[in-house]
């Protein structure tokens, strides 16, 4: 049977039991308002669920019974035993239908028009007081109601909410008997109904088998169980610790057993709380189906990872936000089919729902390929609501602007539909998710769709926490918010800087606001740190930065020590401590000590960030960085003079730190034992003092299993930038200078250092240039608009023994080629201004002189289409820009192939 139906049966059976009791009570206290509204609510729920599940017969009965109760509730109808009996009759009818559903999984055929008619008669006040058991046969002319005759059509008609303007219209249309009266096909039911009027005791007794299969346990019971198991685990840990000290006790065996049992018990209890996330999703396909009908859109809901399990408490908390977000995606995200077709998308929009585990968390992604967020509209709304000024908006990234949808009262939907758009959505979603220690992120591209990703803890009862220490006090930070740890000491290059007393850290390419935990908590013995001098007075070995993320807001908490992560059982703080925002709870560690759990949101607030989620979104930037093809990762370091130096990170195999005292000398060259091999070391500048007792960082370059280390003074940073060489280098070893992070930075020609160490560094590939005798006579034309690559590849090729000519544009290169120069091979970049590589190749191939010359394409990113196109226009091979091994071997291979061809021909 459908899971939904099973759930419905279990739930409705419970409601019906409750209704029975309540109705009896109501008969005794007809004026009990609370009771009345409770009854009304129960019946309403049954009706609503039936309509939702497409059970028209049930819905109809419940609907008409509800009408009467509505009148009871509004005081328009007096509660009399006759009416109550009538309601009981409806309940029995519902029960009958339900047991049939339980047996067959489908709503049985049947007709309840008699019962409905009598219900309606009461509802419309047509009944005569004394006529408590109307003989339907006597008044057939009143019987048929149009809606009763066509249950299939009307059953699926969505019932409008009472607040809906059309509600009353619908009511009017439905309620009055239709003028044309048709006899009911099955005339027999009336008899049954009459029988049913006697209190149907045995029927009430009959309990549902489905309901008996599962046991509903109060959450508190499970919660208590969980707490007790946690205590048991703690006690066991203590026992085990004690037993470890005195070995060979007779307790050892029973303790071991206890250990196992407790572990299993813990697992079992945890399992009772775990439910597959599919449970929260089960209603979504239906919702989407109905929505797409209602909105006239074509929507395909794809769900993956339904089996991902999470704590039921968490599940309950995210059920509504998830439903809301999926509705949102369907309502606002996905466009109408014709709009989609116009923009070249498939008519059917897709919504993907995906859940998976990741490091103790569950990630839920809701993705649609709709129109994405409309940045302009949000901007307008922000201005209208006075949330930011026009200047502030100007400075915001699209990402930051999008974050505003999580604010209260924010909806950009032009019209409020019944589905969503009331502006009470996303902020509630965010609040709910943050309440359970989760976070929500939004990534949207106009025209391409939006992705929401929700990160939530697996369970609320047990969380993984990082134990830290500040001013000799230990605290726990929920692992969920910890993004990374940064070590601050003399050796590392991370340094806390101050802007008018506020500490910040340069973390890669962004400024990270910092807080000192001991300051925030005003710990005794905490230090007041407001300047660089203060920092120097601190113990340099004892500083860690816990980089914490709340929503999209990143900040660092400086602590003295970082211990392990521990699984902790979160307990609420005592009432007298509730007002302190810095703590989200407390717990007992394995050693029995009590420890406070920090609330990162509280600390973020204390750090001055009131509204999380407005900050830059790092992931977005990472994404942008990865998309931007012209950016290069550079490793910045210091060596010798003050100017920072840079090398492409892709060339560096590893970063190591060595003790200078470990350096040995062989054949007058500095070497070090590194991974059981000797690695040659080259100081970056000759005057470097290698005899000092110090540690120095080393950039390790490896090639064909051989390593070489370049000793430098310190590593500064890694940046992703577009390299723009401003000055060509004149000093050997430097390619030139560029501005990086606002500083003049020397771009280092690694090739120079490698050659100075070993003349044949590049020749060890087994790919000696073709024709050893006339090495240097092989002429290569290199065309690349980027000076950086020209400068990187030229020495590489030269060292490999080729005669290289470089051209910075295809136009120039073409001129040179046409001027009668001879080249054995041409290597060309693809993305170039004016004339790109494809065009260049086409032009070249058109000329008789060049139609057979090997032509290699060089590109930083090659898609299969590019490669196809490249081959079409005449490129022989396609090589990735950074892959120097392949480049060299390809050049060699190509030349060898040609030579063979020529030989064969001759």
């Amino acid at each position, binding site marked *: 049977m459908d899971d939904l139906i099973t759930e419905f049966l279990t739930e409705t059976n419970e409601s019906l039991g409750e209704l029975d009791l309540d109705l009896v009570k109501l008969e005794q206290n007809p004026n009990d308002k609370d009771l009345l509204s409770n009854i009304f609510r129960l019946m309403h729920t049954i009706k609503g669920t039936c309509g939702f599940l497409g059970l028209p017969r049930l819905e109809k009965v419940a609907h008409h019974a509800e009408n009467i109760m509505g009148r009871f509730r509004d005081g328009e109808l007096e509660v009399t035993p006759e009416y109550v009996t009538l309601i009981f009759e409806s309940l029995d009818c519902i029960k009958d239908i339900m047991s049939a559903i339980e047996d067959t999984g489908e709503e049985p055929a049947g007709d309840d028009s008699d019962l409905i008619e009598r219900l309606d008669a009461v509802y419309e006040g047509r009944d005569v007081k004394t006529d408590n058991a109307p003989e339907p046969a006597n008044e057939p002319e009143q019987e048929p109601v149009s809606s009763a005759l066509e249950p299939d059509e009307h059953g699926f008609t969505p019932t409008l909410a009472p607040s809906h303007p059309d509600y009353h219209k619908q009511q009017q249309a439905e309620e009055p008997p239709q003028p044309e009266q048709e006899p009911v096909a099955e005339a027999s039911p009336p008899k049954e109904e009459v029988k049913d009027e006697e209190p149907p005791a045995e029927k009430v007794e009959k309990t549902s088998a489905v309901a008996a299969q599962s046991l509903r346990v109060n959450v508190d019971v499970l919660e208590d169980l969980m707490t007790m198991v946690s205590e048991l685990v703690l006690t066991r840990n203590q026992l085990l610790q004690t037993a470890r000290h005195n070995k060979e006790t007779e307790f050892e065996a029973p303790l071991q057993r206890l250990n196992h049992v407790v572990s299993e018990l813990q697992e079992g209890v945890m399992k009772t709380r775990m439910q597959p996330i599919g449970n929260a999703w089960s209603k979504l396909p239906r919702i989407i189906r109905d929505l797409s009908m209602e909105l006239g859109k074509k929507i395909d809901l794809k769900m993956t990872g339904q089996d991902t399990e999470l704590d039921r408490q968490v599940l309950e908390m995210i059920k509504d936000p998830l439903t809301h977000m999926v509705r949102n995606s369907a309502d606002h995200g996905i466009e109408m089919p014709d709009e989609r077709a116009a923009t070249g998308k498939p008519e059917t929009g897709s919504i993907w729902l995906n859940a998976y585990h990741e490091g103790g968390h569950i990630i839920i992604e809701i993705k649609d390929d709709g129109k994405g967020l409309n940045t302009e509209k949000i901007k307008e709304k922000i201005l209208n609501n006075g949330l930011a000024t026009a200047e502030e908006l100007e400075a915001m990234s699209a990402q930051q602007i999008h974050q505003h949808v999580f604010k209260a009262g924010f909806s950009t939907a032009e019209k409020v539909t019944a589905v969503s758009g009331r502006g009470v959505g996303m902020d509630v979603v965010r609040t709910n998710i943050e309440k359970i220690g989760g976070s929500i992120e939004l990534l949207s591209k106009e025209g391409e769709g939006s992705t929401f990703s929700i990160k939530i803890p697996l369970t609320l009862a047990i969380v993984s926490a990082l134990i830290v220490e500040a001013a000799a006090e230990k605290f726990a930070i929920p692992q969920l918010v910890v993004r990374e740890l940064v070590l601050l000491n003399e050796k590392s290059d991370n340094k806390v800087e101050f802007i008018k007393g506020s500490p910040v850290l340069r973390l890669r390419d962004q400024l990270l606001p910092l807080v000192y935990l001991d300051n925030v908590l*005003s710990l005794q013995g905490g230090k007041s740190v407001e300047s660089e001098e203060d920092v120097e007075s601190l113990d340099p070995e004892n500083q860690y930065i816990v980089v914490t993320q709340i929503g999209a807001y990143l900040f660092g908490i400086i602590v003295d020590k970082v211990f392990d992560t521990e699984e902790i059982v979160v307990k609420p703080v005592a*009432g*007298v*401590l509730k007002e302190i925002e*810095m703590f989200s709870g*407390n717990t007992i560690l394995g050693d*029995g*000590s*009590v420890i*406070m759990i920090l609330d990162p949101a509280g600390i973020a607030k204390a750090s001055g960030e009131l509204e999380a989620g407005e900050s830059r979104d790092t992931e977005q930037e990472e994404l942008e960085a990865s998309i931007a093809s012209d950016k290069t990762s550079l490793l910045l370091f210091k060596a010798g003079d003050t100017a920072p130096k840079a090398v492409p990170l892709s060339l560096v195999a590893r970063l190591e730190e060595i003790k200078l005292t470990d350096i040995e000398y062989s054949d007058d060259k500095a070497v070090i034992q590194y991974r059981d091999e000797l690695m040659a070391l080259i100081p970056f500048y000759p005057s470097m003092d290698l005899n000092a007792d110090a540690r120095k960082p080393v950039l390790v370059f490896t090639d064909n299993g051989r390593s070489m280390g370049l000793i430098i003074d310190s590593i500064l940073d890694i940046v992703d930038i577009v390299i723009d060489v401003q000055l060509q280098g004149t000093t050997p070893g430097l390619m030139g200078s560029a501005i990086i992070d606002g500083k003049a930075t020397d771009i280092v020609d690694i090739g120079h250092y490698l050659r100075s160490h070993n003349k044949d560094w590049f020749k060890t590939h087994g790919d000696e240039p073709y024709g050893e005798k006339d090495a240097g006579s092989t002429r290569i034309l290199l065309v690349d608009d980027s000076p950086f690559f020209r400068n990187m590849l030229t020495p590489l090729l030269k060292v490999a023994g080729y005669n290289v000519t470089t051209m910075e544009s295809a136009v120039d290169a073409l001129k040179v080629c046409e001027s009668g120069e001879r080249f054995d091979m041409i290597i060309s970049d693809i993305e170039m201004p004016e004339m790109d590589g494809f065009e260049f190749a086409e032009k070249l191939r058109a000329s008789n002189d060049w139609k057979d010359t090997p032509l290699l394409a060089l590109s930083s990113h090659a898609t299969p289409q590019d490669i196809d196109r490249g081959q079409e226009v005449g490129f022989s091979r396609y090589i990735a820009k950074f892959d120097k091994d392949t480049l060299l071997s390809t050049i060699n291979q190509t030349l060898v192939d040609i030579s063979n061809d020529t030989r064969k021909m001759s």
Partner: protein
Amino acid sequence: MSAEASGFLETNTDDAKDNATGMNTRKEYLSIHINDQMFGIPILQVQDVLGEQKITQIPLASSAIAGSLNLRGRIVTAIDVRKCLGLPRTETTSKDMSVVVEHNGELYSLIIDSIGDVLSLKIKDFEKNPATLDPLWRDISQGIFRLENNLLVVLDIPKLLSTIH
């Protein structure tokens, strides 16, 4: 329980007259000492008596909160009663004892100097707070018992805890 039983016995033997009105003539208190002053805590509110404990400090909390401790797996908030009473912390009274009480389903451990006996006191010896009593004390005291050599201030635990914020 035994204290209650002995109290019951005493009522029977000591004060036969009061017996007519039943048990209501006597009440039992755990006597405690802070800075040589005797206090009483209604015995039924006492959950536990603890010796010195390892206490975790709670930053930013009120100064009357000494910290929290682990009592058989439950987290107990330790209250420095001296602070609540505005009494100085003296060097001589270093031996910390504490009495654990329950309030609103949470456990609190009241740190005091020393624990005395369980006393069964006659209600007729009870008096309201004297008008001259320190206002701070008046808030957290139910009244005073006149003992033979001593005066016993009855602590009103809920009020005491509500003063902390």
